[in-house]
């Protein structure tokens, strides 16, 4: 029987199951339908909601400008799918091609797309984590609960971790004129993702906006009152901060436990896949019927030394899902690689931050346009004499240019003048990333291919 025949039958009346009914899951499913898939499509999601968008949760929703139930993702087309919402997938039988559900049901597939994403890493001390007033922020429910608490007018909010999410939460609090303390283990906010030079700008922004920023400290414990409400946070420098809301913002853990024992190459670092989004099994052999996309995936990128990148980026989830879906329906020669250039945005303290490439691979940085002191600039990161990443603060319109430099492995430092090159951009300096052997949390780009960085995943600050 020809492969052609198989694909035709698959498209006509095959069964495709998508596990993880959020951004990557939805866009993947839509692409399947666009690609002519007419068979049975089953969407499995453990959250009870239709797919919704997460970036607004730490921005508009916390500001009270939008409510969490208004973040539903716009549909690109009608899906005609069978929705199994509110039920987690609990296991996978690769031989029988079946997904097991927590409610005991099983769903058979011809092809499977896994898009289970990540979840917030909780506060490691269970009892402290259970105190009233301690939050994480990943889901709609998290955002609704936190926003309610902010609306009650807490005296102070304490944010653990100054990665992107933690910084955005701090920004939202300040905009609501709520006192906020941010505790960060590194030397500055965003250091894991953007390094110390840019982190220093982020620190200035926080302080200028009235954030009580504590860097180089760890949170050693959370203290509750007799009623089980959080009342203070204790720090490694011996100080403590009274607070009635704590937001734990320590990065994320990949949702792969449900695959344990399945034989799929899935672990705490995500699910490894090839550039065409096909998952590897534990023997390192690529599967032909299981595809992965989004935050849970780890795929090799030729431009970045074939490292397996796992990205927690909205745009990556969309394009990877589209690529996976495309590849699910076609012959191997027609498959496309997922060669998306990592790109990320954030907005905090009124500043729009965007990055492309993999800044955290950079060893040096040079400001090519604008000025750090104005919090408005473009800077590029260099790695082994080439441009590997770029970041802009309130200067995003230039970003496509820097993306081109990255794509064409342009030399670093750039040799040309720009329309706006002020003295501070004249020479590269160390990008000042934390020593990768020292674990830090919350880097947006996890370069998990090189072993020292792996410890990031197992790091749990506060354990002492």
């Amino acid at each position: 029987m020809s492969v052609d025949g198989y694909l035709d039958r698959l498209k006509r009346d095959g069964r495709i199951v998508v596990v993880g009914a959020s951004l990557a899951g939805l866009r993947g499913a839509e692409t399947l339908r666009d690609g002519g898939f007419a068979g049975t499509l089953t969407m499995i999601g453990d959250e009870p909601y239709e797919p919704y968008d997460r970036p607004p949760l730490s921005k508009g929703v916390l500001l009270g400008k939008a409510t969490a139930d208004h973040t539903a993702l716009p549909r690109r087309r009608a899906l005609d799918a069978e929705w199994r919402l509110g039920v987690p997938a609990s296991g996978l039988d690769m031989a029988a091609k079946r997904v097991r559900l927590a409610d005991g049901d099983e769903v058979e597939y011809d092809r499977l797309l896994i898009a289970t994403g990540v979840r917030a890493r909780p506060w490691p001390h269970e009892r402290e984590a259970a105190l009233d007033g301690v939050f994480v922020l990943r889901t709609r429910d998290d955002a609704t609960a936190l926003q309610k608490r902010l609306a009650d007018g807490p005296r102070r909010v304490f944010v653990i971790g100054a990665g992107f999410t933690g910084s955005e939460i701090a920004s939202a609090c300040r905009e609501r004129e709520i006192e906020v303390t941010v505790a960060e283990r590194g030397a500055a906010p965003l250091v894991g993702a953007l390094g110390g030079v840019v982190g220093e700008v982020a620190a200035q922004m926080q302080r200028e906006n009235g954030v009580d920023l504590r860097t180089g400290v760890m949170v050693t414990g959370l203290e509750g009152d007799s009623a089980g409400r959080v009342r203070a946070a204790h720090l490694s420098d011996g100080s403590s901060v009274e607070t009635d809301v704590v937001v734990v913002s320590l990065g994320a853990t990949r949702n792969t436990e449900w695959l344990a024992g399945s034989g799929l190459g899935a672990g705490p670092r995500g699910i490894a896949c090839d550039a065409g989004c096909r998952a590897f099994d534990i023997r390192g052999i690529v599967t032909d019927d299981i595809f992965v996309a989004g935050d849970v995936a780890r795929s090799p990128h030729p431009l970045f030394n074939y490292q397996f990148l796992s990205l927690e980026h909205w745009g990556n989830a969309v394009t990877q899902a589209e690529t996976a879906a495309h590849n699910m329906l076609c012959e191997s020669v027609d498959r496309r690689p997922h060669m998306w250039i990592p790109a990320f945005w954030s907005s905090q303290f009124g500043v729009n931050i965007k990055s492309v490439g993999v800044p955290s691979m950079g060893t040096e940085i040079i400001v090519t346009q604008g000025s750090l002191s104005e919090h408005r600039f473009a800077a590029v990161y260099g790695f082994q004499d080439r441009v590997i990443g770029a970041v802009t603060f309130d200067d995003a319109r230039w970003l496509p240019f820097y993306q081109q430099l990255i794509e064409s492995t342009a030399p670093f430092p750039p040799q040309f003048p720009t329309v706006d090159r002020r003295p501070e951009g004249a020479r590269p300096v160390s990008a000042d990333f934390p020593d990768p052997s020292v674990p830090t949390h919350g880097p947006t780009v996890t370069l998990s291919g090189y072993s020292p960085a792996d410890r990031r995943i197992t790091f749990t600050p506060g354990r002492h």
Partner: protein
Amino acid sequence: MTQGNLLRQILEYGNRPNPYPLYAELRKTPVLNEGDGAYVVSTYWEILSLLHDPRVSSDPHNLAVPGGPGFDPNDESSLPPSFIRLDPPEHDRLRRMTNTSFGPPHKARRIHEMRGELDEIVSGLIDGIGSTDRIDLVEQFSYPFPVTVICRLLGVPREDESRFHTWADTLAASLDPMPGEDPTERNKIAQKARTELGMYLAGLIEERRKNPQDDMLSELANLKGPDGSMTTMELLSTSALLLIAGHETTVNLITNGMLTLLRNPDVLQRLRDDPKLAVPIVEELLRFEPPVQLVPNRTTLADIEIGGVTIPKGASLWLVVAAGNRDPQRFKEPERFDPDREDIEHLGFGSGIHSCFGAPLARLEAQIALSELARRLVNPRLLEDPPEYRQNAVLRGPRHLPITCDEIRP
């Protein structure tokens, strides 16, 4: 046809009604060296990339051979350059300050809130058309509409509006490049108009400093923010820029729009049935018949390699956005006017830091204008096709658009 004179042919008046075959010819050499230091770029990706390239300057001082349309570095009497001819950080500062009284995040609703007033102006103009035997759409509608709007937005008293037509006309004409022609005379006339306009605005600004009103000029004149305030000279050139740019371009967008709709009666009918279709129609128009056809004022600060060609430092760049908009490498069936197109990231408003400041206003004006014309004119027809065009190849559009219709619906 030798390639060396393609640009000249595009600028030749005879090719104004349909420059698109020439653009197609141009695209065969995406980056064309015109021989006199000018490089003509006509394909979508190359244009887009240059518009985002920080080695490309908008400041004419960086040209190896200074000059170019409307620019005379020795003319001390002229206003300082407006932000369209500046690079960062000066450009950013002025554009940002101007934006505080125009767009998001400060004045997110200024344009939105003008909707009622725009509707009224449009209704008034259509009501006033009179005889339907021969309507000159330009004179009677597409010209007065945006001029009135920009004057109201800035805060120019109604009785002075007509004086702007003359100044703006002269200045827009001066933007028209004529390679080979000695620009001195034209520059002199343009300079005079600029000075007169400047003096008028200076008076108005003075008055608005004393008695602020709810208009942009008052806000800009009294602005104090993180970027400081605008000097009077800066304010003058900024408001002159807004007047001119917010003017000729929208006239052409609306006129080209109606012309295209009359040539595509099925689309016109659909718009009549569903005014919401104005949104995608205007987007497709910006691709299909962009009011600004080429961007002639850029120059390179370094050697730039693009499309297999190295453009040397100091070269003068001509970015033919109208050709890029019909690049078959970028758009499916680019020569077809198709309002149902989904993938429509056109270059009609440029891109990058100089992308059209007035885009939100231009879009809204054109949407309202076209949907109202479609609704009220019964059985409209072109009386001349092609119509007579203006001289200008950069801001391309008909000088007159004679049409007729059976009646005008209330």
